[in-house]
């Protein structure tokens, strides 16, 4: 789209654009670097005045404290419980949400049926309901059936919350597969299901990966619902864990940074893994034809 007629002017402009872009994006990413560095600094460097900008020493103290390896520090954080609950709720809900969302997305992309638009819009709008609003009745209802403080109950909620966006993404992906492929499969004697299962699903695997990562991260990062449903460490995930930490130790910035770094690990892995798919997944998957 940007034509590059070669000339000294053009080249100088290019250089300026490049420099500006680098400066802007480094500034955008700066906070993350700061958090990571803080997690590994001695406390005295963090709260001191005048500020120490460049770390003089790096240490694993924050993690030793967090995992209870430091006998002098009694502040113990249930990181293991948060990790277990987060992995369980996010993993389980992702598998189910992506399965069901893919089926729905396929139906919307491939077939003509009554209430097509209404159903699609209805499913999408269910996602627009704020977590705060949903958390109150869910709490009351789950209380009756003993699902509060329960990771499985939480995963159940996350499945429903994650279906709409998965369906949207997958709808877009299936749309890119030419209908002729399906039709020729029918001619070869495939039923609807086996055409989907044997031909179209394998073609949509990159889309599936993108959808799975979005679902996983949405569950991993969710705060509003879990903070109401989970009242103790049996079901608390990282976000309410971090929140409780900030409420309890309001000035232990290093402890918060250390916990944040742990919490960011899966996000970092996933974002790097699917960088390319993410871009195409978000745009082409999202444009409805």
């Amino acid at each position, binding site marked *: *789209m940007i034509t590059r007629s070669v000339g000294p002017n053009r080249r100088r402009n*290019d250089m300026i654009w*490049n420099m500006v872009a*680098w400066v*802007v*994006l480094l500034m*955008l*990413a700066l*906070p993350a670097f700061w*958090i990571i560095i803080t997690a590994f600094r001695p406390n005295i460097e963090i*709260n001191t*005045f*005048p*500020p120490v900008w460049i770390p003089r020493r790096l240490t694993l103290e924050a993690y030793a404290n967090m995992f209870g390896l430091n006998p002098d520090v009694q502040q113990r954080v249930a990181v293991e419980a948060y990790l277990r609950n987060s992995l369980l709720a996010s993993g389980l809900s992702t598998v189910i949400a992506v399965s069901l969302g893919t*089926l*729905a997305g396929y139906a*919307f992309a491939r*077939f003509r049926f009554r209430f097509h638009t209404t159903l699609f*819009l209805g*499913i999408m709008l*269910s996602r*627009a309901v*704020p*977590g*705060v*609003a*949903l958390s*109150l*009745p869910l709490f*009351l*209802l789950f209380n009756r059936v003993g699902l509060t403080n329960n990771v499985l109950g939480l995963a159940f*909620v996350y*499945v*429903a919350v994650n*279906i709409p*966006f998965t*369906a949207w993404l997958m709808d877009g992906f299936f*749309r*890119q597969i*030419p*209908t002729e492929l*399906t*039709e020729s499969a029918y001619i070869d004697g495939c039923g609807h299901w086996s055409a989907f299962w044997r031909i179209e699903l394998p073609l949509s695997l990159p889309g599936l990966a993108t959808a799975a990562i979005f679902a996983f991260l949405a569950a*991993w*990062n969710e705060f509003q619902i879990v903070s109401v449903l989970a009242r103790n460490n049996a079901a608390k995930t990282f976000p309410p864990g*971090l929140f409780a930490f*900030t409420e309890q130790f309001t000035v232990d*910035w290093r402890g918060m940074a250390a916990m944040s770094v742990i919490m*960011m690990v899966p*996000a970092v892995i996933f*974002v790097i893994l699917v*960088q390319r798919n993410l*871009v*195409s997944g*978000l*745009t*082409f998957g999202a*444009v*409805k*034809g």
Partner: protein
Amino acid sequence: MVANSNSPLGKGAAARLVEVSRIEAGFFPFALILPAVILILLVVGFPLLYSLYVSFTPYELLKPNSLNFTVARALRNYQKLLNDDIFWRSLLNTIVFLAVTVNLSYVLSMALSQLLARVTVGQSVLRTLLMVPMMFAPILVGMQFRWFFNANVGLVNNFLISVGLIQEQGQIAWLVDVPLGMITIIIASIWMNIPVMTIILLAGTLSLPTETFEAAEVDGASGWQKFRFITFPLLAPFSYIALTIMSLDIARAFDIVRIMTDGGPARRTEMLWTYITRLAIEDTKFGLGSAMSWITVFLSVLFTLYFFRQLVKARIVR
């Protein structure tokens, strides 16, 4: 649809957008959708109806007998809210917050996407940098900015003192003063929104047809004119995708507000979400909290519906 000649993103046919012809298949598609619909009805639909019922009762968690519906008292919670200054204040704050955040996020993402489209050195590194804020949970975004803007040991004040812009005694209370409290929350939200929006707009920009720009160049169009009359209109569907996705996630800003100011001080940054939490969870007034929840549900759905409609319209025009 959006024409696509040289998208570097999905080299080859897979990236082409085609208008699909859909197949008739009787009940099969319903069978595919049914599990999803059932789950959504169970976890979203039914609870919302239940909360509508609760919103018509004076229910308080610690008074189990208060969960009963009487016609005379049915609208009391809603009346209370309409007469509640704090409710109106939180509604106003929420609207201001949404308007500023959505517009600024969009403008900044658009600028950033145009900038990135011109980059020739280190594209993939820059794209990874762009995705850094995506690695942060909203609650983390809030924690991080609460620390940066802390008056006593915060990065921002430390920096301003280091470069001599303010004195040690004159530390700026970022999270307290008006309108700095709102501004810091908005900065945090924009930082969180930028990556996804920019990615979508960048992908859109890169997929635009080169020929149009070449023709414009021959006609002597300036850079701004090319953007204003070619890029911007052609990007409309992508803009609406970005805005729709953002509208779905906008309530996540609650996490940021909750951890940064929790609506305070003195309700200066109170928003609908924080006020619901205060009413329902802290004061255990589930009836009143549910009434307010319903108002936010209504607003959120309206918001998403608006962008979704624009998205559909933009597609039809193409």
